[in-house]
């Protein structure tokens, strides 16, 4: 039989993390990501308290991105320009579709042929 020594994508999926994953390590990683985030998006905050608060929100969003990655494996989730916003802030500042139960008052589009 033949055993390949070249790692492939399939091999990657079988590799398990064996290094420590302590809270201290996670904290260091989060700080690193946050520093990169601030640089990449040119963000700064008015004072140390705001900076600390935004870091806590950012850390929470890192965990959220990990959850999204598990729930949505065919997409890539991670740090975006919105990573320092709470879900509610994100909703208020960047969404804005008014609630609508039905669209009954608008004209219905005629059915189009789809087989040719």
């Amino acid at each position, binding site marked *: 039989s033949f055993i390949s020594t070249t790692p492939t994508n399939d091999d990657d999926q079988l590799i398990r993390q064996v290094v420590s994953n302590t809270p201290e390590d996670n904290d260091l990683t989060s700080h690193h990501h946050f520093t990169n985030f601030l640089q990449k998006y040119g963000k700064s905050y008015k004072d140390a308290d705001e900076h600390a608060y935004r870091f806590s929100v950012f850390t929470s969003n890192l965990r959220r991105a990990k959850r999204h990655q598990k729930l949505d494996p065919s997409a890539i989730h991670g740090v*975006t320009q919105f990573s320092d916003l709470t879900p509610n802030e994100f909703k208020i500042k*960047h969404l804005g*579709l008014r609630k609508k139960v039905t669209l009954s008052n608008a004209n219905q*589009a005629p059915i189009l042929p789809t087989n040719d």
Partner: protein
Amino acid sequence: LPEDFDWRDHGAVTGVKNQGSCGSCWSFSTTGALEGANFLATGKLVSLSEQQLVDCDHECDPDEPRSCDSGCNGGLMTTAYEYALKAGGLEPEADYPYSGTDRGTCKFDKSKIAASVANFSVVSLDEEQIAANLVKHGPLSVGINAVFMQTYIGGVSCPYICGKHLDHGVLLVGYGSAAYSPIRLKDKPYWIIKNSWGENWGEKGYYKICRGRNVCGVDSMVSTVTAIHTKPQ
């Protein structure tokens, strides 16, 4: 229907815009659809004014009179079409540029109208009908649940679980027949969606979401618009 279709390849889609910190996604979805419809009617692609909608469109839902288009506080694409129909049309972006706030007054100048609505309608939940209307009438306004969009970087989004509550207005510009899904071990068809959060978000401002099961409610609020050719007076 073609297997793959993208209105960007046919010149019907303007560059990605950025709504900034303002809940005006509904106005970008509206202008995007009318830009495409106007392109089909006139052969010219003109970027249209979201700020006109933000400042001047306070159209209310006939079924829910307290529910009205309200600048950065939100709106609805179908009522925005209704506004555009009543007002006579939308100005070009160049004449009424986007400011990202709703604190200004309406500065609409009817003599500068660049695109006018001929008709609009809502499309049924059927994905084949959505695709057919997209190909026939141009990019479509759609509502979506944006919960996965806050952390989206790229790829085809196909979450196992996603709410159907719609909170974001975007523009459906095309579809693809297959993109590889490593976990599901099969090719998946997807919609191509233009967002209004700038080119630095997602795939150069675009979002791909899988087709087939109304994921994140993407099939449930779809509207199409047609335009008439208007020359500046």
